[in-house]
């Protein structure tokens, strides 16, 4: 049970790191770019940042499931 909680804590921290990194990636949108190749740049970077946030959310959910499983074991 403790090991499940420990793993859950680890995944929670990973989720926080990835979310913070997704924020940094999003900051790349601040680059001023007008000219050839710029058309999709801002939306591409935003898509990548959103995808990283989705991964962080999935890690959060995993941490939650691990805690839930630990609770089930504790209640047994």
């Amino acid at each position, binding site marked *: 049970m403790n*090991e499940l909680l420990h*793993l859950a804590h680890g*995944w929670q921290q990973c989720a926080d790191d*990835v979310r913070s*990194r997704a924020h940094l990636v999003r900051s790349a949108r601040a*680059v001023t770019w007008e000219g050839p190749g710029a058309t999709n740049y801002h939306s591409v970077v935003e898509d990548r940042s959103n*995808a990283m946030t989705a991964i962080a959310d*999935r890690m959060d959910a995993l941490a939650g499931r691990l805690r839930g*499983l630990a609770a089930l074991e504790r209640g*047994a």
Partner: protein
Amino acid sequence: MKTRVAPEDLAGAAVLLDRGASAMEDAFARGRPATTTAVTAAAGVRAAALGPLDGGFETAYRRGQAVAAIERDVAVLAGMVAAESLALHGVGTSLRQAARVYAAVEDGVRAGLSGLDRFLYDHPEVAEWGARGILPVAGPLVGLADGWGFLNERTDRVVALKPLAAREGRAPAGLADLVAEDVEVSKTPGLVRVTELIRPDGSRAWLVSISGTQDWGLAPGSDPFDATADANVIRQHSAAAAIGVNLALLDAQGRAGVDTSADPVLTSGHSLGGMVALTLASEPGFRHGRTITGALTSGSPTGGFDIPDSTRVVSLEKLRDPVPRLDGTPARQEPNWRTIVADPAPGPGGRSAVAEHDGAGYAALARGLESGAVPSSTDVDWHATIEPFVGQPGTRAIVHDYVLTREWQNPRS
């Protein structure tokens, strides 16, 4: 075209994306996915072993569901992280490429217009990049120009042919003489030269030397070797100049008073002249009743011309001349087509792209190739293409010069 971007900003953004990918991969590894799966599986085993006294089957079922969901989450996360990492690195790579292109262009802008041709000399590939980007919009631009009467050979114009007196000339000795002849005819407005070569055995060969661009004005004038001809040849592989050259050869061959249908013909030209030479060599109407054995171009964009296998082509290109790159296609190397790409030392014009395109420079290049002083693509054999036209002692050369002019089809009084 509006452009505003700092290449170093793009490179910085690429670093952000790459670091984002690495951090995400690290975070996934720190979550210990293998351990998570193993520990969870062990919990599943424990749940399966539960009996009624431990909470009953419902508890066992709920734990089993939780275990399955966790295992699924770990597997899905592994796929998401791998895919996203690839995507982030891919965007990063694209950004770095864009940063390099913009940096090169900035380099050119910083050099200023006075240094532009030096920049093109040092970065000849930029002409090719430009062509790839520009050609798709060239059609609409030329169409726009048409509306103002520019760059368009309208159907109410025709080309008129004025023959000059035929005279004895000197038979070309080799490649350099052929290129030099193209450069020579480019000095006289509207001039096209047909050289009738009569060999010692009485057989004939015909050399057609075609002028390069002589008038850079946007409106079509009386000289058919102008920017309008460039636009038309590039756009539709036809121009009044090509019609005029055909008429000139027809007239010269007619004056010979013999059957010329089996005589070898070489069309040759520098820059626009080379494109006209290829236009004719690919044109069934020009080939009909003639034996077009070769075409020679120097400093010409050659992409897009469809030449029959029976005609050999030799194209001379200087590595630092941007003009041959304007078609945006690689130098042609085909069974019947040899392109000699050379990078000779700068001529009298110094390190200048404009000077690199100069016809005299191509004549010098041809001399260097013949003497071996200029290295080129080593396995390129161009001799067979020009062999029927050069270097036969005792060959007579009769020069037929013609002046072509664009005129109104229905002259107004």
